[in-house]
């Protein structure tokens, strides 16, 4: 029989993945497209000029940044959905009754989201090196793209998770959608990275993406610092 581990965040990761397998499939699909995009551009279209100082190969490689970030958002959706599910099922209320505080509880889900992002990014990095070596296009640009994607994904996932837990409005499904509204927030925050890849020269695009990651990370930290005031215990009740 499969035994449960004792580390709360790892258990949360396992529970989330078990509950929303379709998101795992979507995440793997987007990550695979991102790996192929990063390496195809780098191997076959390097030095092909686009408009102004933008090179087609670099743009394609950097397109892997938002694709990888969206894969991370999809993967961590399972944890966010688990939070909503546990809240509605009374599990979070029971956690509180065991002596946990609201901080203990939301950090458990936040950590689970971060673990999932890091696992995905480690996999993407390894795959980028492997594909880069096979295609003989070099691994520097795909790895830089993975690094930028990691920064962006970590900040977006942290912000999205905190925002969903803080504002119960984001936990509710809205007209026509059967998923909580907050999930759209992650997708929205990834959008600028699609544009920067195609309209800005490589180094500038990387700088803008990193700047976005820093701003979103700052917002996440602000939410985290204010969380004990913003997330009252009653917000965790069904």
């Amino acid at each position, binding site marked *: 029989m499969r035994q449960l581990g004792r580390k709360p965040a790892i258990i949360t990761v396992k529970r989330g993945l078990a509950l929303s397998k379709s998101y795992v499939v979507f995440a793997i699909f987007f990550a695979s497209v991102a790996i192929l995009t990063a390496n195809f551009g780098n191997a076959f279209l390097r030095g092909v000029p686009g408009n102004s100082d933008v090179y087609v190969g670099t743009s394609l490689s950097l397109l892997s940044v938002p694709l990888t970030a969206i894969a991370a958002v999809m993967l961590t959706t399972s944890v966010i959905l688990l939070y909503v599910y546990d809240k509605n099922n*009374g599990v979070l209320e029971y956690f*509180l009754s065991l002596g946990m505080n609201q901080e203990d509880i939301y950090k458990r889900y936040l950590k689970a989201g971060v673990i999932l992002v890091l696992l995905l990014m480690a996999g993407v990095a390894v795959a980028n090196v492997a594909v880069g070596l096979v295609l003989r296009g070099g691994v520097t640009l795909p790895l830089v793209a993975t690094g930028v994607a990691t920064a962006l994904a970590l900040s977006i996932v942290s912000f999205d998770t905190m925002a969903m837990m803080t504002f119960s409005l984001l936990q509710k499904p809205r007209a026509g959608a059967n998923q909580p509204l907050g999930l759209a927030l992650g997708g929205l925050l990834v959008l600028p990275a699609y544009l920067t890849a195609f309209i800005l020269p490589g180094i500038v695009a990387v700088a803008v993406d990193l700047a976005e990651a820093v701003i979103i990370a700052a917002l996440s930290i602000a939410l985290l610092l204010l969380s004990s005031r913003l997330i009252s*215990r009653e917000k965790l009740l069904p």
Partner: protein
Amino acid sequence: MHTLELHNVNSGYNKKTVLHDVSLTIQEPSIYVVLGPNGAGKTTLFRTIAGILEPYSGEVVFDGENVASSRDVRKRINYLSHYNAIPEEMTVYNALTFYANMQGGSADEVLELLHLQELRDKKIYDLSQGQKKRVSVAKVFLQERDLYLIDEPTSNLDPGYSKEIRDILMKLSKDRIVLYSTHNLYEANDIGTNLILIKNGTIALSEKIANIKLREYRVGIRTSTDISKIVDAKKGEQGYYVVSVSSPEEAGRILKTLIEHGVLVTEMRQLENPLQELYETA
């Protein structure tokens, strides 16, 4: 000996007060039945005592420690919500192990205690509502604690399992305080020694059930003799002769009279639950 004190507690949700200035002291280990209509504030009372809700004002103190601010004292309280609060994607054993890892105790022991072994490897979402409730109740017995807050534990359960749970709680109540909420008045009368009646977010009555006096008792007497000529009785519901008395002692006197007249009484019982009147007027 443990002491639970509520001092002028105001508590609720979204700044809307549900409990109004509730004060209560409980010292004697026993089962305290918490009764009241829907929306009276029973669950809010339990959540506030458990430290899940922080009171807007006033304080809940258990054994001298403020529950809202002390994590340690909250770890000495077991709370059963009327939500199942079990991860439905897990098997019964894994769900109980999940909580045992957090709060202590052994899943195997509690499976045995509540005779849940045959469900051990079943997924929670495959269980019936009653089976889910049994697993939900089981998690509260993983580890013994000093104060039990049990909100409607026997809803969806058949009589056999309900009795099993009541028996465990009665055993625990010998040296612990158990607050027990139910809508089943017969169960309340059966299990409880004390009653806490909640009305509109206030405690309308806190009293030993034995001391609760009703305006009128209706007693059913089963006999083959027409006793309406001996006592003021009318043939009524379920084949009983029904007598209205003002106290249990008067019922005893009627029985004595019937025996003196040579009447063979095969059954004599109180027709209404003594808590019914309180509940209806709450």
